[in-house]
């Protein structure tokens, strides 16, 4: 029984006159059926459901017309039309009508597909372009995606040709991005320092070993750093009475903190180390957790300005740290590691400090001139609000507060491997590069990190200042050329090799000639060899042969198949194994294809697929579109660890479904998920400690499990202040159950009200009392009702939070140090009923109903979403048969997700254009 497909409008047409069916019918005989069984309501005067079947011609080339006939087909074949109140047509004529219509619709669509293919020509999207350039030039650190105009979206994904437009802006950004990436590849070859291990002790790091004492205008004691030795304070060092460091204690010295990064203030960077050249590095951090007594550090504050300026002493307060009383930590704390450059920072890793010192090691990709930042992410982030001291550390207890102490940072690298310099080799083979002198014009200009000043340099003091300064040293321009004895011959050879690797199919002679001509023309203009080649490669990487996914109608050849596979499972170009299989004409063999799909899914690059797919399918890319209201939800404010863990949960969950071939029903409910301590705390799951995400078996009665109740999903379906059952309901209908909902008529939306007098539920009930609104809302609201138990960040709630002036708020302090402003309002009502009857009391019962009734729909939707993503075309009417075949093939494994991916690859949907 289709739960959600409620009958459209039920108009008891008492009369039964004859209606002329004038328009061209979809097949001979259709008009008779329509006149007999449909036209009593769907005629020009009654016009039920906005549909007049007596006038509806069959014009399949018109997409709206085609869609209308598909709808007619679906309603009749589902038995919803004619509605129960009307006379039932004979089974035979009904079957005939459905079959006739199916054939007509399929027939038309197949003709079009044969001629054009399902998928239209498309270009690479920004994700794919970035990955392809990174892989081709072996420059995995370059950031390109953000420099390209945002891609359009069609049928949910950034994979469909009609939404992937090109403009002159797009084209110029391709050219400058390719140019930039090639210069990065050259610069990383030019600057190849020997790998070294640099250890920086916190006490030697100028940006950490400072700010020990309050200063005027900077009196926040929570933001002070302080010296720590063996988990205890060093008041003499803090006061400046003793040396900052001594050789005997050097290895055990540390710098402590009780607050986390706020805005762009300093005090967290290890700026003595700057990445000399882009590449892979091993980063180690040593430190431990501490407990700091409360009571604060006495310091002067000032009020007023000029003549009126007066000083007053800030007395002791329990929630301010006393930096002279430090004790061993009481628990572990999560430490975030970031790479920072020009004010931007990007997260690299997360691990735990313990009460005992530990060395934590990660391997990361770093860009030139970046610095490393470390921060304890759980600690509070002070935010100034009006008066300077008007905040409270929410982690403070009567006897103190948690903190962390950093001992040292060690960076080892660059770690060279076979990919080091591979981009340069791709461009110039074994030809040597040399720097050009001041009086040699031209060449390619690279930007490199200047070497640190030599000791004893007369200008060392100045240079060192510039080197250490905020933002670090400016990158230095270096001009280079590539040396060759036979420029033309070498160019021809190199361009041929570059094209063969950049293009995803054999290169046509004419194309190669054209690029060689470009090189020759540039070279004759006295542009250097290197520059002329870079210009030529820029043309290659901006040319349709690189940008467009070329497929011919009909069955794909092996090269196109390799490209589809690589774009599907790696979001990038085919690697050499796929290419050689395609060249040998073997990729299309089913067993080879299966093996390759397995290999690609097992490769770490398949994580790109999971990330990109969930970014669009589940809207994870919109996680920052709203932030929790600091009025209602300041306990979530600035809680990056929670947000990052929530996104990672969803990605790891989807990855797990694929890796272990888990049944599609896990999308609705699962007995496991992925958690770390912060997320487990958010979900109320006991026994999970530490920053590391891991697979956790959920308690039997947990509301978590499945995608619907993951914090990431609940966040992207809320606006940071309120939740709406309508928005969440539509989201689940479309993303999880695979229904398209029509956009609402232009009626005023419900105006959010957080004062607490009326709940969204009560407002909606009024809305639903209107018959026009009810026809859709009875379908889309119920899933949303079930999710009303979850707040804007996916936390469980029994009552709504409200905000009203002049009412005492709940006690408590948010992460920003500001008191709560909300109080608890009306209770949440998460009960509802599915359109055709079964009712549920809460999310648990709702999930159970879905599992009982809708498992196949969930699987069918997953097939549809994946196939659209994989092929760049929506599931058409005539594709339904193949979708059903995929379902049939995977039924045995409970619609195992890996089986679904494999079956899609084996299907004609995937193997035909």
């Amino acid at each position: 029984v289709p739960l959600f497909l409620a009958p459209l409008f039920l108009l008891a047409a008492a009369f039964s006159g004859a209606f002329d069916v004038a328009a061209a019918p979809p097949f001979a005989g259709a008009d008779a059926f329509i006149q007999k069984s449909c036209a009593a309501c769907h005629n020009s005067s009654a016009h039920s459901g906005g549909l007049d079947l007596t006038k509806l011609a069959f014009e399949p080339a018109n997409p709206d017309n085609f869609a209308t006939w598909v709808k007619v087909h679906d309603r009749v074949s589902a038995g919803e039309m004619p509605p129960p109140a009307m006379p039932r047509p004979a089974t035979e004529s009904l079957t005939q009508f459905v079959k006739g219509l199916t054939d007509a619709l399929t027939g038309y669509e197949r003709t079009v597909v044969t001629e054009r293919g399902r998928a239209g020509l498309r270009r690479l999207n920004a994700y794919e372009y970035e990955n392809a350039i990174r892989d081709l030039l072996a420059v995995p650190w370059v950031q390109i995606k953000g420099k390209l105009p945002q891609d359009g979206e069609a049928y949910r994904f950034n994979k469909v040709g009609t939404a992937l437009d090109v403009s002159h802006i797009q084209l110029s950004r391709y050219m400058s991005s390719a140019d930039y990436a090639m210069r990065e590849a050259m610069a990383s070859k030019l600057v190849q320092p020997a790998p070294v291990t640099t250890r920086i002790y916190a006490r030697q790091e100028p940006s950490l070993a400072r700010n020990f004492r309050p200063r005027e205008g900077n009196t926040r004691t929570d933001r002070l750093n302080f010296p720590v030795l063996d988990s205890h304070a060093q008041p003499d060092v803090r006061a400046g009475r003793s040396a900052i460091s001594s050789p005997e204690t050097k290895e055990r010295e540390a710098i402590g903190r009780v607050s986390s990064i706020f805005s762009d203030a300093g005090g967290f960077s290890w700026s003595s180390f700057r990445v000399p050249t882009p590449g892979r590095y091993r980063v180690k951090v040593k430190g431990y957790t501490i407990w700091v007594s409360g009571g604060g550090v006495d310091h002067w504050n000032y009020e007023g300005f000029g003549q009126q300026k007066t000083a007053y002493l800030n007395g002791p307060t329990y929630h301010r740290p006393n930096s002279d009383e430090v004790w061993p930590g009481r628990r572990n704390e999560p430490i975030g590691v970031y790479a920072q450059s020009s004010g931007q920072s990007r997260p690299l890793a997360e691990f735990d400090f313990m009460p005992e010192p530990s060395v934590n090691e990660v391997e990361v990709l770093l860009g030139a001139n970046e610095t490393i930042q470390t921060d304890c992410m759980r600690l509070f982030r002070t935010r100034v609000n009006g008066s300077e001291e008007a905040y409270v550390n929410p982690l403070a207890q009567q006897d103190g507060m948690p903190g962390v102490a950093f001992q040292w940072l060690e960076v080892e690298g660059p770690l060279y491997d076979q990919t080091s310099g591979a981009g340069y080799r791709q461009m110039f083979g074994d030809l040597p590069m040399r720097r050009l002198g001041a009086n040699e014009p031209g060449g390619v200009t690279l930007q490199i990190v200047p070497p640190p000043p030599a000791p004893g340099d007369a200008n060392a003091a100045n240079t060192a200042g510039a080197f250490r300064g905020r933002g670090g040293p400016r990158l230095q321009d270096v001009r280079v050329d590539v040396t060759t004895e036979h420029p033309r011959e070498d160019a021809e050879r190199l361009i041929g090799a570059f094209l063969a690797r950049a293009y995803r199919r054999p290169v046509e002679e004419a194309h190669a000639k054209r690029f060689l001509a470009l090189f020759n023309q540039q070279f004759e203009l006295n542009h250097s060899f290197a520059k002329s080649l870079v210009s030529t490669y820029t043309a290659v990487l901006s040319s349709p042969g690189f940008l467009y996914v070329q497929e011919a109608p009909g069955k794909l050849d092996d090269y196109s198949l390799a490209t589809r596979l690589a774009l599907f499972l790696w979001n990038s170009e085919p690697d050499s194994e796929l290419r050689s299989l395609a060249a040998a004409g073997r990729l299309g063999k089913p067993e080879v294809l299966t093996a390759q799909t397995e290999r690609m899914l097992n490769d770490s690059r398949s994580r790109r697929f999971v990330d990109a797919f969930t970014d669009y399918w589940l809207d994870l890319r919109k996680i920052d579109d709203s932030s929790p209201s600091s009025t209602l939800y300041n306990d979530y404010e600035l809680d990056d660890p929670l947000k990052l863990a929530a996104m990672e949960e969803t990605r790891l969950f989807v990855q797990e479904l694929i890796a272990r071939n888990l049944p599609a029903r896990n999308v609705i409910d699962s007995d496991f998920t992925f958690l770390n301590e912060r997320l487990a705390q958010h979900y109320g799951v006991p026994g999970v400690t530490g920053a590391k995400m891991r697979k956790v078996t959920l308690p039997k009665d947990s509301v978590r499990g499945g995608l619907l109740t993951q914090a990431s999903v609940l966040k992207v379906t809320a606006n940071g202040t309120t939740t709406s059952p309508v928005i969440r309901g539509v989201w689940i209908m479309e993303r999880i159950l695979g229904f398209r909902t029509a956009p609402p008529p232009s009626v005023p939306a419900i105006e959010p009200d957080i004062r607490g007098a009326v709940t969204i539920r009560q407002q909606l009930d009024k809305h639903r009392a209107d018959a026009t609104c009810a026809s859709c809302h009875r379908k889309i609201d119920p899933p949303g009702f079930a999710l009303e138990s979850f707040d804007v960040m996916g936390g469980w709630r029994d009552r709504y939070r409200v905000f009203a002036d002049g009412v005492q708020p709940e006690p408590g302090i948010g992460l920003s140090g500001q008191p709560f402003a909300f109080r608890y309002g009306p209770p949440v009502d998460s009960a509802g009923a599915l359109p055709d009857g079964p009712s549920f009391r809460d999310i648990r019962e709702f999930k159970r109903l879905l599992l009982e009734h809708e498992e196949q729909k969930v699987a069918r939707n997953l097939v549809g979403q994946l196939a659209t993503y994989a092929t760049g075309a929506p599931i058409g009417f005539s594709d339904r048969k193949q979708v059903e075949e995929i379902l049939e093939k995977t039924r045995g494994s409970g619609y195992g997700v890996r089986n679904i991916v494999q079956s899609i690859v084996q299907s004609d949907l995937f193997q035909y254009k």
Partner: protein
Amino acid sequence: MINHGYTRAISRRTLLRGVGVSLALPLLNVMVPAGARAQSPAVPRRMFGICNNLGVLPAEFFPAEPGHDYTPSPYLKILQDHRKDFTVFSGVSHPNVDGGHPSDISFLTAAPHPASSSFRNTISLDQYIAERIGSQTRFPSLTLAVNTGARSLSWTGNGVAIPPEQSASSVFRQMFIQGSPLEVEAKIAELDTGRSILDAVSDQVRDLERNVGPSDRARLDQYFTSVRDLEGRLQASKGWERKPKPVVKEPEPQDPTNPAQYMAKVAAMYGLVRLAFETDSTRSVTLMLDSVSTPVVEIAGATISDGYHNLSHHGKSEAKLAQLRIIDAWHMRLLADLFKELRGVQEGGETLLDRTMVLYGSNLGDANAHSTINMPVLLAGGGFRHAGHLTFDRNQNYPLPNLFVSMLQRIGVETGKFASSTGTMSGLEMTKA
């Protein structure tokens, strides 16, 4: 304190580094389609479109009475000195532009249903202008934004966003810092290289077009058109490269780094736009004030406790409304400063404001309800006989694209239609000049 001499030296070095480093594609987003050359009008006219995508509190913005003699609303009181120089509209919106926040990208295009999955944007007012008179200035148009990720008010004819420029200092350098003759020649050589690259790729398109069906050919045509657009743009840039850049006495602006310094960023952009118009560097500018992506705004002397977007969902809470009023009033103050600055510049016997249409408004009529009807809009300057408060039906809104048609006609573009317009703006007449 900023040392301007030092600042200038640095920006100069930055500029030098830029030359020859990368492909010298013009950084500003300009558009010179082949053959689009309108007659140079006797009087240069300009357009500046500003969208604050969280809008303003409607009750504080709209006046009650219609016509010239309206009692100023609290917000319009801040613009009182310029009362004769602008018209405020009520009861206007873009037909069928709905969907809440995503509708900001339709503010200057009026393309319907911007939140729908099949949405495709259409040409924006500024690009429509740039296509026709853009070749007369060094930069056919400027697309600016404050605090945005990628949201843009400027859209090309095939519905592609022009990424906004967010650094006032970078735009300033491109407009006013002159390179040495050697640098200029190097830049020109780069532009020529760019054109040679385009020649190579466009030849390839022709090859490919022969082997594909009609629908795929249309996609390749789009690529081909892009090549031609970019070629035209490089050609135009080359012409301008040889002409000396205008000299201004103002120092290069400093870009506030923190998105919380929202008002300082807006003020810097307004100052920059005034300079761009004063030096006739461009005649078409858009500025997206992405309030939605703005965190807690820093305002001297005021306590703002919540992110801008969260404040806008005030849920009728007085504490939030009070803070919104402070922010909105700052917007109005900066706008008053802009009007004053434009009025302070003389050009051919008129003020710069007389020749500049400043369109200020929002895609949201009421951000608390995500409502896209009853948009707050005002038009200042630009050679109109301003009509005070023009009122239309607040339930059945009057089409705002009609105002765009009036603006296009004022700037000298002969058209009777823009997007879903039904005519010109009723009740708004041009001055004679």
